[in-house]
């Protein structure tokens, strides 16, 4: 008898494990969790971007039907500590801001929660929230980061003396020396606009306080249940084990649902104050408050006559909005670290300033600041190409870190592990049929049509470990096999809906030789899963996956040893686990069903292998080896573990009379090392491209002159729809991450940055024959038309 070895699951397009649950509408998200008798919360939000709370009169609201409580910021503050910071600027040379669940004293942005109403149903809560009378004393607002830095600007935090959350330098500041022999020095300014994550599911919480047991149970839309438990316990003055956080299915996140948002704390706090279950579902307009990406990037770049970049000096001014306890401001830091990455740039210096303004704060959003870095470099490269008269593709090729120079230490301290950027560029141009597209462009231009081709290279440092942040680059998984051979994986990483549980199951199934149907992955429950950091920085497969592989290998070793004992062969004999069986490699006819072996571990331990600990369970942590947090002589650290990249090409046409953009093609070659599930990787990249295109063309948070948001729904914050997008044409390349068990690189943030930059470059290429340019985003029709009008078109 021989056992057919089924194809390895790792690397194949296995479909979602629980897909049937989703397509039949049975998946349970936080807002679907039933809670009989739950009261509902509505938040009273500031209508002003900056105003002192003189008084709050809740008498009328309290008298309304169904109202159980009205809690003001002052009252809430008595019952909790300030929210711990995920990445405290105050510890890194900047300012610490005290942030509480509800505003105390002053509202710093329109939409800031200042009081909460609890009522028996959502409608009555909303009605009562509108009836809470707040007496405001309006204060002058500052809505622009550069103005906020000027002396005399209105101050958000008067005791700081300025509006600077933090400012830092990344990379040696040696532009002048490095540029000494440059053939060209260009200066420029790029402005990126405020966007937001906008997952389809808004935030939601259901908190239940059991006073007798002193126990808080919270169902939350969160990417990081364990970390949320830690900070929630600290804020509510509870022991950690008194808090149980459960993260049901998540309806998308993209960073928005990282722990530490003030809403994380409001609902549990109210549940404890009222002693009954309390639920809140965020309104869409509030989800659209969270900001990201708005920056002014001033730069100087020095280039040799052949287009090689010699030095880059950047001054980034980030319009953060009010300070927040989340990691949001870290996007400016990561953007600085990633600036120039992947190009063999001898000198690169970024000075960034994170500025407080009267807008809702930045919230960490995919791709976490690397988007600005990509856009900047890709505009710079295109501009250099224009000046030196060499095709932009060739200028990129001349500047890429060559494939034989890894590990490559970038000026920011990040150390690239692997890659083949030029090949990715070649593949993209080939798929595009670049010569044909160029010919088409010439014909179109001759006919007065504005056809543009844009290239962009994106390189995404992933799996971060920023010292001091409450999340790290490692994670933990437990693999457990039952006596009947069923496998449970408990992991500290979570899924925002990407399918990483299925990918982890694939990995474990392969290690243990069991079918997918035998493996169940459990995530998102602080009382079942090992402590972990959840979903962040595209690291679920790298950390949770690798940890699960290590743990599965432990379990496999026990199974193999037991099988050897059962088959009475020497310990040196190789045993293959495959096809739900354990077989001798040398003689596959000697085979045992895996369930029999697993059963034997549990039942025949004394008879079989006394030297084997009879335990089919292992918990392992995978901590990537290439992080280095001891600063070098220049104070630099290597804080990222993998470096996936992509090369994009966008082809589009601009209507010269209206500025409308029609996307014709979008080609991407992507490399995320070893692919565990190509279907999931394609899905991540395609989704990222769509989001990047949306950011380039239309999605923009807009405010009125007083700082009141005007983009409060999907009729004004314009997400791309299926008709707006061309089919994304994908090519793949694989350079495995060296020195890792799997060779996989992160993929969760891929696609966005390159798409954004390629579209902006393509629009500029389209406008070039008229001498028009657009060095700010979004490249929306009104702005494109204005750019054309500015050159007299």
């Amino acid at each position, binding site marked *: 008898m021989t056992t057919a070895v089924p194809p390895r699951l790792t690397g194949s*397009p296995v*479909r*979602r494990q629980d*897909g*049937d649950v*989703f*397509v*039949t*509408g*049975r*998946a*349970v*998200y936080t*807002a*679907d969790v*039933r809670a009989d008798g739950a009261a509902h919360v509505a938040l009273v939000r500031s209508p002003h971007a900056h105003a002192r709370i003189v008084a709050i009169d809740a008498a009328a609201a309290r008298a309304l*039907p*169904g109202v159980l409580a009205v809690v003001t910021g002052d009252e809430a503050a008595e019952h909790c500590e300030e929210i711990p910071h995920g990445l405290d600027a105050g510890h890194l040379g900047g300012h610490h801001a005290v942030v509480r669940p509800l505003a105390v004293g002053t509202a710093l942005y329109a939409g800031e929660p200042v009081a909460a109403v609890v009522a*028996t*149903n*959502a*409608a009555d809560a909303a009605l009562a929230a509108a009836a809470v009378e707040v007496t405001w004393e309006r204060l002058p607002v500052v809505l622009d980061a550069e103005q906020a830095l000027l002396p005399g600007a209105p101050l958000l935090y008067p005791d700081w003396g300025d509006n600077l959350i933090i400012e830092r330098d990344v990379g040696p500041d040696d532009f002048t020396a490095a540029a000494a022999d440059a053939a060209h020095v260009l200066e420029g300014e790029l402005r990126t606009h405020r966007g937001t994550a*906008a*997952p*389809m*599911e*808004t935030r939601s919480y259901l908190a239940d306080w059991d006073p007798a047991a002193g126990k808080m149970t919270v169902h939350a839309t969160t990417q990081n249940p364990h970390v949320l438990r830690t900070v929630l316990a600290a804020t509510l003055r509870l022991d950690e084990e008194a808090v149980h956080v459960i993260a049901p*299915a*998540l*309806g*998308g996140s*993209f960073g928005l649902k990282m722990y530490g948002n003030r809403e994380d704390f409001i609902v549990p706090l109210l549940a404890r104050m009222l002693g009954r279950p309390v639920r809140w*579902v965020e*309104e*869409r307009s509030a989800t659209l408050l969270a900001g990201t990406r708005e920056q002014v990037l001033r730069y100087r770049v020095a280039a040799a006559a052949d287009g090689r970049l010699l030095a880059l000096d950047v001054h980034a001014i980030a319009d953060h909005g009010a300070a927040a306890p989340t990691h949001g401001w870290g996007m400016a830091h990561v953007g600085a670290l990633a600036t120039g990455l992947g190009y063999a740039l001898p000198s690169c210096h970024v000075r960034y300033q994170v500025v407080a303004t009267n807008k809702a704060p930045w919230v960490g959003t995919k791709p976490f600041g690397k988007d600005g870095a990509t856009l900047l470099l890709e505009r710079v490269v295109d501009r250099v190409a224009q000046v030196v008269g060499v095709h932009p593709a060739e200028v990129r090729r001349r500047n890429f870190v060559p494939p034989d120079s890894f590990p490559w230490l970038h000026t920011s301290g990040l150390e690239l592990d692997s890659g083949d950027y030029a090949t990715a560029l070649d593949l993209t141009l080939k798929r595009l049929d670049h010569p044909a597209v160029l010919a088409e462009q010439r014909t179109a231009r001759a006919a007065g049509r504005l056809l543009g081709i844009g290239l962009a290279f994106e390189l995404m440092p992933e799996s971060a470990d920023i010292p001091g942040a409450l999340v790290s680059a490692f994670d933990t998984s437990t693999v457990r096999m039952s006596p009947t051979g069923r496998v449970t994986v408990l992991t500290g990483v979570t899924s*925002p*809906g*990407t*399918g990483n549980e299925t990918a982890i199951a694939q990995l474990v199934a392969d290690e243990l030789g069991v079918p997918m149907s035998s493996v169940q992955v459990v995530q998102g429950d602080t009382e079942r899963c090992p402590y972990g950091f959840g979903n962040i920085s595209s690291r679920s497969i790298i950390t949770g996956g690798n940890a699960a592989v290590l743990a599965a290998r432990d379990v496999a070793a026990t199974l193999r040893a037991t099988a050897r004992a059962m088959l009475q062969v020497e310990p040196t004999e190789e045993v293959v686990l495959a096809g739900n069986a354990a077989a001798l490699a040398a003689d596959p006819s000697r085979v045992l069903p895996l369930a029999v072996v697993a059963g034997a571990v549990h039942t025949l331990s004394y008879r079989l292998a006394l030297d084997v600990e009879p335990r089919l369970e292992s918990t392992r942590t995978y901590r990537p080896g290439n992080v280095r947090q001891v600063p070098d002589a220049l104070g630099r650290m290597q804080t990222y573990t993998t470096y996936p990249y992509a090369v994009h090409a966008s082809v589009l046409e601009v209507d010269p009379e209206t500025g409308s953009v029609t996307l014709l093609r979008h080609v991407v070659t992507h490399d995320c090392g070893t692919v565990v599930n190509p*279907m*999931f990787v*394609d*899905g991540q990249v*395609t*989704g*990222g*491209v*769509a*989001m990047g295109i949306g950011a380039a063309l239309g999605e923009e948070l807009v405010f009125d002159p007083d700082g009141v948001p005007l983009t409060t*729904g*999907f*009729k004004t914050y314009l*997400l791309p*729809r*299926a*008709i707006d*997008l061309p*089919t*994304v044409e994908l090519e793949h390349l694989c350079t495995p991450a060296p020195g890792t068990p799997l060779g996989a690189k992160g993929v969760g943030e891929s*696609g966005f940055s390159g798409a954004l930059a390629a579209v902006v470059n393509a629009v500029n290429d389209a406008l070039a024959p008229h001498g028009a340019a657009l060095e700010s985003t979004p490249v929306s029709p009104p702005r494109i038309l204005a750019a054309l009008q500015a050159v007299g078109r």
Partner: protein
Amino acid sequence: MTGEEGRVELRLTVDGAERTASIDPRSLLLDALRDELGAIAPKAGCRTGDCGACTVRVDGAIAKSCLRLAVADDGCEVRTTASMAVGGELTPLQQAFWDTNAFQCGFCLSGMLFAAEDLLERTPSPSETEVREAISGNLCRCTGYDAIVAAVLSCAAPPVRSSRGA
């Protein structure tokens, strides 16, 4: 005025079962389904008609349940994606969505599945553009739509050939 006061009786057939519920007359159809009748397949993504996550069928026609007053639909027949699969057997469309990874977080699925089903009923062999148009009343933030388009196209009937003699 709290509790049951002011409630009204709503009769609906939901996923094949006749149901009655005492509801708050301020409920949208979406709220009545989710909060009172335990039908959680439709989701609230925007409550302004823009995302389509709340899509159901009302008396056969696809509808965004956040744009309907529950009391106005008294007596109607409502279907959610939970009753698409008959006898536990997934429809070809559901199967295709699963097989081609046409969803990630799945929040948009009610809208995508119903818009696609509705299209295929009207236009059994749609073009890619027709598919893109048909699902453009719905938003998906995760997939970039390509996998959804592929799933729908994979369920298209083969193009009708001219019959003999025609």
